[in-house]
């Protein structure tokens, strides 16, 4: 058996795209680690502490099968980013706020248009500048969509449906959103007053960091049948929106990370990292967090619905036509920081599991009951954004993902270099010039955000997507290249 060492963590090669950290590596591991990567990506994965975090996650009570890592895995806090873990509710399985993260239901949605590259190439600057002016973005950004305390609680229950009822979208949008834009079981009583305060003015705001709205064009088709189902073609203009639950989600995570430190003692749970603080799903603490997390997830779906509404308005202004005539229909919206109660087979038996996806995308295969009727034949659309200088991908989930990864795939390119290293080594003016020479217009709220998100600090999305495709846990449908982007 081929063996590599990363620090002192042994990696056993299963095949060209799968690597195992045996359970015997460390006392306390309840399951092995399973990493999806090829030799090239492994070289990057060795560089930080992500594998140590895969091992730490394997200690969670009730974890089943494997502590999983997608090929975009990198060092996070608690879970690695790109980590997936499922715990068995009936076997003492736990839920951990650190397995979801502070930006609860950070996610991405992809819209198509009936515009082609030639229709937008002379207007891309105008489009990006208008998006930047009309969509609130940046640190602590506040939006024009102000809500009363009563309405905010409605958002926590109704998610994207709240926005649709206000006229910011249609029922078709909801059909094409994971969970139809709202998880059931959300309880606003489980959300602190402070979290509500932080969320009050942030609906319809992009935020900062790696959040963006990007205008793209399809430059490669891989699966003709899936493209036909989705109504996609070469040269078609697309829009991708990446945002999350803003301050409300941060506060929910903070509130429950703090309280679950106490749960570790109460339920006699040993984990190697306090950021993995957790509680049994059947406990009052576990149930309360899940209810509050669902509220934040619903807030995020409402937020992305509002952002899409603002985006459609900008296109209407620039192209002088309604968004319907411009064919701006939602392909799909996926969460990539979330915990979900799902049914999966474990050792041949159907089990109720809590699937944590921290920087990982749900990727359900064809026929799954959670999918809209129109996607049942091809599988769930899986949207994987790259960095602002390289491609993004649309894939579909597979049956193999259902068998191996609880129906999960990667969520992006994955960071390679730290933000501080980026600020030290990249000049914003040079970066903007370089992107413009590739025909990519960028508007960013902050100088730091721009360099922190430069292509050089990310892995190559083409390598990452290549692994999930070749491992069979998702299937490439088409590839997009960026034309313009606004960054928070």
């Amino acid at each position, binding site marked *: 058996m081929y063996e590599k060492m990363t620090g002192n963590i042994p990696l056993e090669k299963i095949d060209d795209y799968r690597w195992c950290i045996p359970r015997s590596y460390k006392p306390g591991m309840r399951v092995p680690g399973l990493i999806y990567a090829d030799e090239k990506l492994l070289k990057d994965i060795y560089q930080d502490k992500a594998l140590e975090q895969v091992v730490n996650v394997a200690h969670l009570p009730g974890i089943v099968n494997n502590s999983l890592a997608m090929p975009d895995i990198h060092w996070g*806090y*608690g879970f690695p980013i790109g980590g997936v873990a499922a715990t068995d509710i009936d076997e003492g399985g736990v839920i951990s706020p650190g397995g979801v993260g*502070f930006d609860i239901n950070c996610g991405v949605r992809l819209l198509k248009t009936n515009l082609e590259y030639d229709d937008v190439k002379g207007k891309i600057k105008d489009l990006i500048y208008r998006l930047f002016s009309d969509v609130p973005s940046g640190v602590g950004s506040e939006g024009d969509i102000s809500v009363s305390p009563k309405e905010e609680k409605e958002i926590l229950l109704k998610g994207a449906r709240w926005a649709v009822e206000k006229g910011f979208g249609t029922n078709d949008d909801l059909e094409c959103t994971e969970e139809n834009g709202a998880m059931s079981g959300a309880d606003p009583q489980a959300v602190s007053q402070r979290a509500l305060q932080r969320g009050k003015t942030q609906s319809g705001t992009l935020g900062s960091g790696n959040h963006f709205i990007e205008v793209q064009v399809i430059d490669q088709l891989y699966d003709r049948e899936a493209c036909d189902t989705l109504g996609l073609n070469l040269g078609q203009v697309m829009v991708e929106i990446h945002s999350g639950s803003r301050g409300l989600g941060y506060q929910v995570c903070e509130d429950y990370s*703090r309280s679950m430190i106490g749960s570790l003692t109460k339920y006699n749970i040993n984990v190697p990292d*306090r950021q993995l*603080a957790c509680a049994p799903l059947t406990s009052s603490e576990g149930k309360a967090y899940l209810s509050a997390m669902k509220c934040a997830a619903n807030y995020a779906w409402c937020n992305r619905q509002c952002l899409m509404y603002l985006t459609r308005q900008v296109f209407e202004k620039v192209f002088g036509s309604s968004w319907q005539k411009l064919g701006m229909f939602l392909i799909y919206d996926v969460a990539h920081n979330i915990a979900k109660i799902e049914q999966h087979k474990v050792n041949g038996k159907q089990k109720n599991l809590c699937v944590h996806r921290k920087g990982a995308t749900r990727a359900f295969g064809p026929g799954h009951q959670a999918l809209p009727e129109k996607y049942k034949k091809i599988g769930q659309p899986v949207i994987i954004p790259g960095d602002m200088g390289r491609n993004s991908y649309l894939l579909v989930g597979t049956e193999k993902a259902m068998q191996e990864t609880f129906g999960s795939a990667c969520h992006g390119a994955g960071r390679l*270099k730290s*933000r501080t290293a980026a600020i030290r080594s990249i000049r914003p003016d040079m970066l903007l010039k370089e992107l413009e020479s590739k025909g990519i217009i960028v508007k960013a709220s902050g*100088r730091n955000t721009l360099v922190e998100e430069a292509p050089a600090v990310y892995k190559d999305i083409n390598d990452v997507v290549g692994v999930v495709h070749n491992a069979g846990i998702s299937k490439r449908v088409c590839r997009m290249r960026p034309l313009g982007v606004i960054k928070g």
Partner: protein
Amino acid sequence: MKKAFYQFIEHTADIGIRVKSSSLAGLFKCSGLAIADISARKQKTHYHKKHRIVIRQKAANVEELFVNWLNELLSVSAIESLVFEDIQINQVNENFVDAIGIGSDLRNYKLNTEIKAATYHQLKVKKTGLIWQAEVIFDV
């Protein structure tokens, strides 16, 4: 650049800092001011009013107290739209901190980086000899 009161620690996705001080009060003060230094850069002062906000936290141990303290500063500054320019520590021990944050209107600043929260991951707060040192990773 006046960054002598904290150092960055390399972290792939987020931002880590190391803070040192001869007292626990100094450690808490410097770490709180590091948040402002990382997040925002002062522009012209258009809004002169200073806001004095009481920050009190307690915890089972000094590390948890430290994280609670930083998260309280982040949370209050987000809600009140302030940047804490100065901090007065009235009382601090390993389980309790009582302080006043002196905040300036956010509109006096150009914001750089959004810190979502302080995390417990690889958190260290310890006294070695006469020096207190803390290491913390922020989710950004």
